[in-house]
Structures are given as structure tokens and as C-alpha cells.
């Protein structure tokens, strides 16, 4: 189940490597870009930011795994597998998903009203993708359960 995904040391190492690669790519590419390439420069900044975030999150997790006592680690594992926590996470995800749908629909109207047709279509596509994912998942689990 999606909400049961736990972060292992292996996944954190993969995330750390991906973060370093992304951040390094963003930073190194930034230096080779001409001064006029503002859009690419911003994009490389985003790569660097995302990579740094990956590095930070995974490094904190790895340090926690290293310094935590076995007792603490056991409790953390229990907390991750706890059925009430999983249910709470699912409820929170559902609320977030409904809110996102409402927000996307609102943005479609807002961008149309502002005359930003391209942005309006981007939001509409995002809304359609989200709805499609819902329908596919619904159909899949309806057959499975």
C-alpha cells in the first residue's frame, strides 16, 4: 500500500546520490550559461534547490539511523507500520487531493478571467490528469478488492 512506504537506509542513499547529482548539475550548468539565458538559469536554480532538498532530507534520515538507539529505531518502525497512523495519512491524502482538485478548477477559472489562456489550459490538463489517475486507481482497486 502506498501509505505503508517506509524509508529505508537504501532508499535514503539513493535519494542522497540523486540529490548530489541534481544539485551538481544545476550548479555546474549555471556557470556555463550565458548571462542572457534567464529562463534556463532559473531552471538550473530549481534543479539545485531540489537536489539540495534531497540531500538534506536523506542526510538527516541517515544520521538519525546512525545515532538512534535500537529501542528508538524499533519504535520508529512500529510508528511507520501503525494502522492508525496509516489511516490518518490516508485521510490527510484524501483531503489534500480533494483540495487540489478544487484549487485546480478554481485556477482554471481564475486564469481564464485573467486572460492567461496558456496557464488556464495547463491547470485544466493537470486537473484532467488528476481525475484520470483517480479513475484508473479506482478501477484497479475495485477489481483487486
Amino acid at each position, binding site marked *: 500500500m502506498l501509505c505503508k512506504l517506509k524509508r529505508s537506509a537504501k532508499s535514503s542513499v539513493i535519494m542522497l546520490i540523486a540529490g548530489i547529482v541534481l544539485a551538481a548539475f544545476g550548479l555546474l550548468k549555471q556557470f556555463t550559461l550565458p548571462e542572457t539565458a534567464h529562463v534556463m538559469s532559473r531552471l538550473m536554480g530549481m534543479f539545485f534547490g531540489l537536489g539540495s532538498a534531497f540531500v538534506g532530507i536523506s542526510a538527516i534520515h541517515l544520521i538519525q539511523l546512525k545515532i538512534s538507539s535500537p529501542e528508538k529505531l524499533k*519504535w520508529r518502525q*512500529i*510508528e511507520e*507500520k*501503525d*494502522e*492508525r*497512523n496509516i489511516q490518518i495519512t490516508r485521510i490527510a491524502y484524501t483531503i489534500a487531493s480533494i483540495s487540489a482538485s478544487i484549487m485546480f478548477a478554481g485556477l482554471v477559472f481564475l486564469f481564464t478571467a485573467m486572460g492567461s489562456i496558456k496557464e488556464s489550459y495547463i491547470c485544466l490538463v493537470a486537473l484532467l490528469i488528476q481525475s484520470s489517475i483517480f479513475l484508473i486507481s479506482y478501477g484497479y482497486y475495485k477489481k483487486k478488492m
Partner: protein
Amino acid sequence: MKNNLEEIRKERGIRQEDLARELEVSRQTISSLEKGRYNPSIQLAFKIAKFFNMSIEEIFIYEEE
């Protein structure tokens, strides 16, 4: 759904934390179960019943809404 979990646990002199450890759930889950704020899955209900060597019906009281 009501339950007698708190009374049974206290009768046996078990702390919430120890019960949680045995059942492999968080202490908050035990607390929520005892307060009737959370209904357990059938698996957890069986685990609890097995731990106390009782039937599910002796611990959990089904109430029609």
C-alpha cells in the same frame, strides 16, 4: 464500538506502552482504542484478543449505529 480494553489491561497490570510493544502498534493507538476514538482493524482485534487469551466479543462490544 465500545470496548473493555482499558479495564482488562489494568486488571492484568500492563502499561499502555508494553501492550503497544507487544501488539506492534503505537502507544497513541492503544490510547485511542481505549477512549473509543478509533476502531481497530479485524487483524488488530484478533491480535488483542489473542494477547489477552480472550474472544473478540469479550473485549469489543458491537453497537448498531
